[in-house]
C-alpha cells in the first residue's frame, strides 16, 4: 500500500488539511494538528507511512532551517548584538542546569556515566521548531518571554556543535569503526581539536557576513532589475540552500548558519520580499516536520514498558520546567512570562534525534536505550502544545500579571504601525514629517535604485510591489493602523485599496490623488481620505500673487481656507453626478467644460465678499437704520 511517492504525498497533504483545520476550529495550535496527523498516518495507526518516516524527518528539518533564516531576517545585527548577554546568560543557565540535573537523574537510574552524559546533553536541548512556531503563531515574539525563549534556543543551536564534537571522546569502543556510521555528519570541523573548532566557527560566521554584504545583496539587486518574479524566488532558495550547504560542510548546524544569514540580510531592502517568498514554503516544511515527528512515535516500544517511559518522560519534563523557571527567575521575568517560558521549552527537541543516533553510531547507546529515548523525545514534543493549553487556560488567568503595554504620549509613535506605499517626491515628504515626530513608517517602494539610495540616508525602505497581498502581509499590514498610498498611478492605488478593503477593512487608507478626475473615481469607490497633490500648492501660489497686488495676508489665508472648503464640497457634488463620458468625446473638452462650470460657480458665489468678520461697515449701516447708539 505504501511505496508510491505520490500516494504518500497525498496522505501527508490530506492528513495535514483535515487535522490542522480541525485543530484550528477547536482553537488549538496548528502544531497539534500536524502531530496528530502524523500519528494517524504513521505506521502504528493507519499505516499509510512506513519506516521511511525518519528520512522524511531529515528532509523536513529544512523547514527549521528556513524558519531560522526568517527569524534572522527580523533581527537587525544591532539588536542581535544587544541580545548577547541574554543568549549567553539564559542559555548557559538553562543548558548547564538541565544537563547537571538530568545527569544526576540518569546516574541514579543506574546508567554508566558516558550514557548519562549523552542523554543529559540530548535532554538539555529544546525544540526550536515547536517553540518558535507557537510563539510566532501567537504573536509573542516581542514580549520578554519571546526574546528569552529565542535566546535560549539560539544558545542551544551553538552549543550543539560542541556536543557533537565531544561525543567521539566518550566512545569506549574502537574509534576505527565509527567512520562508516553517519558519514554525512563527519565533516571538516569534527576532525579538529576543540580550540580550532571555535576558530573554524568564527571564521564561517565571518564568511557568511561577508557573503551577505558583498555577494548576496548585489546579486539580489541584479535579480530585482530583471523584474522577473520567479527569479527572486529562485534567489531566495539559493541563499538558504547555499548557506546550509556551507554550514554542513563545515559541520555547524545549518539552522544556525541560516539564522546568521538572515541577520545579515535584515538590513537590506529585500527583507520583506524574501520573507513573503519563503514564508509559505517554510510553513509547509515545518508542517511536514511535525507530521514526521508524529509518525515516528514508536508505539511498540511504548507498549513494552509504558510505566518506565511514562515515568522518565514526566521526570524529564518536570526537570526541564524547574530549570527554566529558575532561569526566568534569575533574569527577573514576571510570573506569567516565567510560566510561558517554563511550559513552552520543557520538551526534548529535534536535536536529540541527531545526538542520540550519533551516539548510537558510536556505540555509546544500546538499541533499546535509543528507542526508548527517541520515543520520549517525540512524546515530549507532542505533549508541549497540550501543556501550553493547560497553562494558558487554567494557570495564567489566575496569575493575572499580563505583561502590560504602557503607552504614555511619547510612545504613540512606536506602538502604532503605519505603512507608506511609494517614496517619491510626495511620499518622501510624508515620511520625513512623520519621522520628525518619531513615527517610523514601514515604507514600500518599487524602484530598487531609489530604495538603495534612501536606505543610505537612514530610512527604513523596502523593495517590492505593494499590490501583492503577501508583500503587504509581510510588511505587517495585519497590525497596521493606517496605510498611506503616496503613488501617483491611479491603477496601483485602486489595486491596493481593493486588497486592503477586502482583507483588512478596519485599516484606514490615506490616499494621494493627482487631480479631480482621480478624486471622483476614489469618491465613487467610497474613499473619503484623499489628498489632491496640486490643490494646496496652487492656492499658495495664487494667494502670494494676490498679496503682491496689495491684498492683506491674513485675509488671503482665510480666503484660501474658504476656497478649499468650497471646492471639496463641489467635488463631492460633482462626483455624484452621472458620468458624462458619452457626451464628451475628447477628454480635454470635458475638462474645459468642467473648468467653465467651476469658474461660473465662483463668480456667482462672490467669493471675496462673504467674509465680513472684523468688518464694521455692516454694523454701522444696521445701527443707522434702527437709530440705536452703541
Amino acid at each position, binding site marked *: 500500500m505504501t511505496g508510491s511517492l505520490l500516494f504518500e504525498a497525498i496522505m501527508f497533504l490530506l492528513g495535514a488539511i483535515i487535522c490542522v483545520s480541525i485543530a484550528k476550529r477547536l482553537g488549538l495550535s496548528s502544531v497539534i494538528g500536524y502531530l496528530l496527523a502524523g500519528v494517524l498516518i504513521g505506521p502504528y495507526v493507519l499505516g499509510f507511512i512506513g519506516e521511511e518516516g525518519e528520512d522524511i524527518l531529515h528532509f523536513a528539518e529544512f523547514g527549521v532551517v528556513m524558519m531560522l533564516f526568517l527569524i534572522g531576517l527580523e533581527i537587525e545585527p544591532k539588536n542581535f548584538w544587544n541580545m548577547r548577554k541574554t543568549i549567553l546568560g539564559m542559555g548557559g543557565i538553562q543548558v548547564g542546569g538541565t544537563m547537571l540535573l538530568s545527569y544526576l537523574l540518569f546516574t541514579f537510574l543506574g546508567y554508566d556515566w558516558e550514557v548519562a552524559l549523552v542523554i543529559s546533553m540530548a535532554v538539555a536541548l529544546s525544540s526550536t521548531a515547536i517553540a518558535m512556531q507557537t510563539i510566532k503563531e501567537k504573536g509573542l515574539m516581542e514580549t520578554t518571554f519571546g526574546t528569552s525563549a529565542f535566546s535560549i534556543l539560539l544558545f542551544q543551536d551553538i552549543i550543539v556543535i560542541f556536543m557533537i564534537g565531544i561525543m567521539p571522546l566518550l566512545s569506549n569502543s574502537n574509534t576505527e569503526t565509527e567512520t562508516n556510521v553517519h558519514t554525512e555528519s563527519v565533516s571538516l570541523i569534527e576532525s579538529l581539536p576543540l580550540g580550532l573548532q571555535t576558530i573554524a566557527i568564527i571564521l564561517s560566521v565571518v564568511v557568511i557576513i561577508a557573503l551577505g554584504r558583498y555577494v548576496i545583496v548585489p546579486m539580489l539587486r541584479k535579480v530585482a532589475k530583471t523584474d522577473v518574479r520567479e527569479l527572486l524566488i529562485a534567489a531566495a532558495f539559493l541563499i538558504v540552500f547555499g548557506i546550509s550547504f556551507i554550514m554542513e560542510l563545515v559541520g555547524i548546524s545549518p539552522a544556525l548558519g541560516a539564522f546568521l544569514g538572515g541577520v545579515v540580510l535584515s538590513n537590506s531592502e529585500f527583507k520583506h520580499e524574501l520573507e513573503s517568498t519563503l514564508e509559505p514554503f517554510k510553513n509547509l516544511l515545518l508542517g511536514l516536520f511535525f507530521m514526521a515527528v508524529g509518525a515516528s512515535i514508536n508505539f511498540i516500544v511504548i507498549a513494552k514498558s509504558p510505566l518506565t517511559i511514562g515515568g522518565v518522560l514526566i521526570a524529564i519534563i518536570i526537570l526541564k520546567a524547574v530549570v527554566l523557571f529558575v532561569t526566568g527567575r534569575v533574569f527577573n521575568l514576571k510570573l506569567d512570562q516565567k510560566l510561558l517560558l517554563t511550559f513552552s521549552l520543557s520538551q526534548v527537541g529535534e536535536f536529540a534525534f541527531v545526538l542520540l543516533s550519533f551516539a548510537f553510531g558510536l556505540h555509546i547507546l544500546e538499541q533499546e536505550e535509543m528507542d526508548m529515548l527517541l520515543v520520549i523525545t517525540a512524546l515530549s514534543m507532542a505533549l508541549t502544545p497540550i501543556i501550553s493549553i493547560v497553562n494558558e487556560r487554567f494557570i495564567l488567568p489566575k496569575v493575572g500579571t499580563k505583561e502590560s503595554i504602557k503607552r504614555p504620549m511619547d510612545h504613540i509613535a512606536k506602538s502604532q504601525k503605519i505603512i507608506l506605499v511609494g517614496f517619491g517626491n510626495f511620499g518622501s515628504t510624508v515620511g520625513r514629517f512623520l519621522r520628525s515626530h518619531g513615527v517610523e513608517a514601514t515604507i514600500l517602494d518599487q524602484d530598487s535604485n531609489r530604495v538603495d539610495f534612501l536606505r543610505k540616508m537612514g530610512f527604513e525602505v523596502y523593495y517590492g510591489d505593494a499590490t501583492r497581498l503577501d508583500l503587504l502581509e509581510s510588511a505587517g499590514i495585519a497590525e497596521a493602523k493606517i496605510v498611506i498610498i503616496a503613488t501617483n498611478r491611479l491603477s496601483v492605488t485602486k489595486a491596493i485599496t481593493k486588497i486592503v478593503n477586502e482583507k483588512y477593512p478596519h485599516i484606514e487608507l490615506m490616499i494621494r490623488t493627482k487631480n479631480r478626475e482621480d478624486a471622483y473615481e476614489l469618491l465613487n469607490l467610497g474613499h473619503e481620505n484623499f489628498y489632491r497633490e496640486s490643490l494646496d500648492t496652487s492656492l499658495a501660489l495664487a494667494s502670494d500673487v494676490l498679496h503682491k497686488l496689495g491684498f492683506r495676508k491674513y485675509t488671503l489665508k482665510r480666503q484660501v481656507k474658504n476656497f478649499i472648503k468650497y471646492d471639496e464640497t463641489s467635488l463631492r457634488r460633482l462626483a455624484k453626478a452621472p458620468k458624462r463620458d458619452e457626451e464628451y468625446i475628447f477628454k480635454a473638452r470635458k475638462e474645459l467644460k468642467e473648468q467653465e462650470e467651476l469658474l461660473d460657480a465662483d463668480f456667482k458665489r462672490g467669493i471675496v465678499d462673504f467674509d465680513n468678520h472684523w468688518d464694521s461697515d455692516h*454694523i454701522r449701516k444696521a445701527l443707522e437704520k434702527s437709530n440705536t447708539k452703541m
Partner: protein
Amino acid sequence: MKKILILFAHPKLEKSRVNLALINHIKDKENVTIHDLYEEYPDFHIDVPREQKLLESHDIIIWHHPFYWYSCPPLMKQWIDMVLEFNWAYGPEGKALHNKTCLNAITTGGSKEVYCSAGYNSFTVEQFLRPFEQTANLCGMTYYPPFAVMGTHNLSDEKLNDYKINYGKLIDLLQNNLAINDFEKKSFINDIPQLKIS
C-alpha cells in the same frame, strides 16, 4: 437637566497635567459637550454657523482655559470675535444667547495670594475677568463667578484630585439649578460650601 457646553481652549493640552485631569474627569458626563477649540480649529478658521448652532442648543456655557497673561489663549479670543456676531449675540436683534448662563473655568500658575492689590499681580482674578463678564452681560447672559484652580505649579496630586472631583460636582450642581444666591458675594464659585476644599 440643563445642557452644558464647555468651550475648551488649550494650545498644548498634552502637556497640561491639571487641564487633562479636569477634562478627563467630566468628559463622559451626560448632557455635557466638550468642545476642544484647538482640536477643532488648529488653523483658527472657525466655522461660525456651526458654533452658533452649538451655542443655541446649550443652556450653560463654560469658557474653560488656562489664564495666560491675565486672559484666555488667542483662539478663544478669536472665537469670541467671530462667533458673537452683531445682531445675533448682541445689537438690536441679537437675542440668541439671552437667558443663558456663562462662567469661566480657569487654571493659574500663581496662587490666590498673588492676585490682590498687595500681591505682585496687583489685581484680583475677578478684576481681570471683567471683559468676559461684560461680554456675557452684553449678550444677555447671566455671568457666574469663576471656577479656578490656582497655584498649579505647586499643586499636589491629592489637591488636584480634590479639584477634579469638585469640577464634576460643579457640573452636577449647575445642571440641577444651582440658586444664584448660593454664591452671592463670592469671588469664586469654588467658595460655595458644597465645593469648599479644606
